[in-house]
């Protein structure tokens, strides 16, 4: 398995790492919010290249993982109905509901279709006027504007057999909830770059000020993550707590005004349950009352949902950064991508899946490693392209 040779500019990576190593004087705990960043960190072994004292805590930013079980079970029930064509992103197919998943519903005869974009689902609705087409609208601030536009289009084109099963989530209230948790160890955040490319950075200064935490808007590629960590560590060492944008090539401070305007028109903020975490106030979007006719939960009355999570699954603790995936007893034994107990083992953004894919043969995470410190000099060896694992 290769890590650091995938850095596009190993020399720049080395300079960033040297700067981080030179800056750090004491331990710090930094949370990367986004599951895409978690995968980048684990895949490229970034956590193992950082100074020993820098712990990266994996956050809850995996949309597939935090979609509540009750909503998954509703999706499975709706998808089983003969009149329904149920459209979803491929990521959701193998997310376990109570006892089954969309893959199984399809094998039992349900018309489950995978689409690349919600507009594809709208097209399917146009082509199948006698069927009810439901799109599973999940995700953070990046997937909400596409769904908002699709509902806008459905109304504009008069498409009545289309609806959205909505379970959108928002990052800033999650940061607030994490900081308010009694077990919180997080001292700084790498904010999710693509969420900010839509929403801008305006929601974060109040959080940085209130909780006295640096928040650095960070991208997803290995060098982006290193630069985000470098800027975070610099603030921590100086005792600062501001919002900094380390991903300016994609994130203008105002985000995308057209997308924000559409979100404000189609959706309204609501409390939302996060799988494994619980209800976080104001942390979601639902369709506003004016667009209720496109709400699948309104259109299909689903009752008798009795959700059950497997007792041995600790994905809730993983999602809150309280447990590293490999510290769970089920990890890699009863719980694998083939037989996932929780959504974190399924998703391409889930922390358990990342550890399973890139770490199960390897050295384990830094937090439990007893190996000596990875100092600046020893960090250089993998930069030559030798495998870490």
């Amino acid at each position, binding site marked *: 398995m290769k890590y650091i040779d995938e850095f596009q500019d190993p020399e720049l990576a080395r300079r960033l790492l040297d700067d981080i190593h030179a800056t750090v004087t004491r331990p710090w705990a930094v949370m990367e919010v986004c599951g895409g960043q978690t995968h980048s960190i684990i895949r490229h072994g970034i956590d193992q290249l950082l100074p020993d004292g820098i712990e990266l805590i994996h956050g809850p930013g995996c949309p597939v993982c935090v979609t509540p079980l009750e909503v998954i079970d509703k999706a499975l029930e709706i998808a089983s109905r003969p009149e329904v064509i149920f459209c979803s992103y491929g990521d959701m197919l193998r997310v376990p509901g109570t006892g089954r998943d969309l893959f199984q519903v399809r094998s039992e005869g349900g018309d489950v279709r995978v689409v690349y*974009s919600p507009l594809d689902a709208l097209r399917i609705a146009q082509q199948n006027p006698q069927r009810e087409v439901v799109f599973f609208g999940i995700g953070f601030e990046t997937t909400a504007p*596409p769904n908002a536009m699709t509902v806008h289009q459905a109304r504009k084109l008069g498409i009545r057999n289309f609806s959205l099963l909505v379970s959108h989530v928002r990052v800033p209230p999650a940061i607030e909830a994490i900081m308010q948790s009694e077990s919180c160890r997080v001292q700084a955040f790498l904010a999710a770059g693509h969420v900010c490319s839509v929403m801008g950075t305006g929601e974060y200064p109040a959080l940085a000020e209130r909780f006295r935490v640096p928040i650095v808007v960070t991208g997803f590629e290995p060098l982006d993550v290193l630069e985000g960590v470098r800027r975070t560590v610099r603030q921590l060492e100086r005792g600062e707590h501001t919002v900094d944008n380390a991903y300016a090539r994609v994130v203008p401070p105002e985000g995308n005004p057209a997308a924000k305007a559409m979100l404000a028109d189609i959706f309204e903020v609501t409390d939302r349950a996060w799988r494994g975490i619980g209800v976080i106030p104001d942390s979601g979007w639902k369709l506003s009352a004016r667009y209720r006719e496109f709400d699948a939960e309104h259109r299909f009355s689903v009752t008798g949902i009795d959700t059950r999570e497997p007792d041995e699954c600790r994905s809730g603790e993983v999602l809150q950064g309280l447990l590293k995936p490999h510290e769970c007893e089920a990890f890699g034994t009863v719980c694998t991508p083939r037989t996932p107990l929780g959504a974190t083992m399924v998703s391409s953004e889930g922390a358990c899946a990342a550890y399973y894919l890139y770490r199960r043969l390897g050295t384990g995470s830094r937090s439990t490693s007893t190996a000596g410190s990875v100092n600046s000099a020893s960090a250089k060896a993998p930069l030559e392209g030798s495998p870490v694992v």
Partner: protein
Amino acid sequence: MCLAVPGKVLDIEERNGTRMATVDFGGVAKEVCCEYLPDLQVGEYAIVHVGFALQRLDEDSARQTLALFEELGLLEEEFGDPWELAAREATK
């Protein structure tokens, strides 16, 4: 689903009253809605989430990101056959 992929705008036209572009992602062409970037032009690069252009990107950054994604197999994950990917995942 959450992956933002940079691509180059090949053409733009109105379809069903919506501004749609054909965008090239390292050899894979997709239809992309550009209503959220109303002044996006042919030849420019944008980052695309689930068929929607959400921000502009300069050409150098876009090319570097695409090269990395291709090397890591992320383009196949995003644009490949999802049933095949899910089935492969199930037999890992």
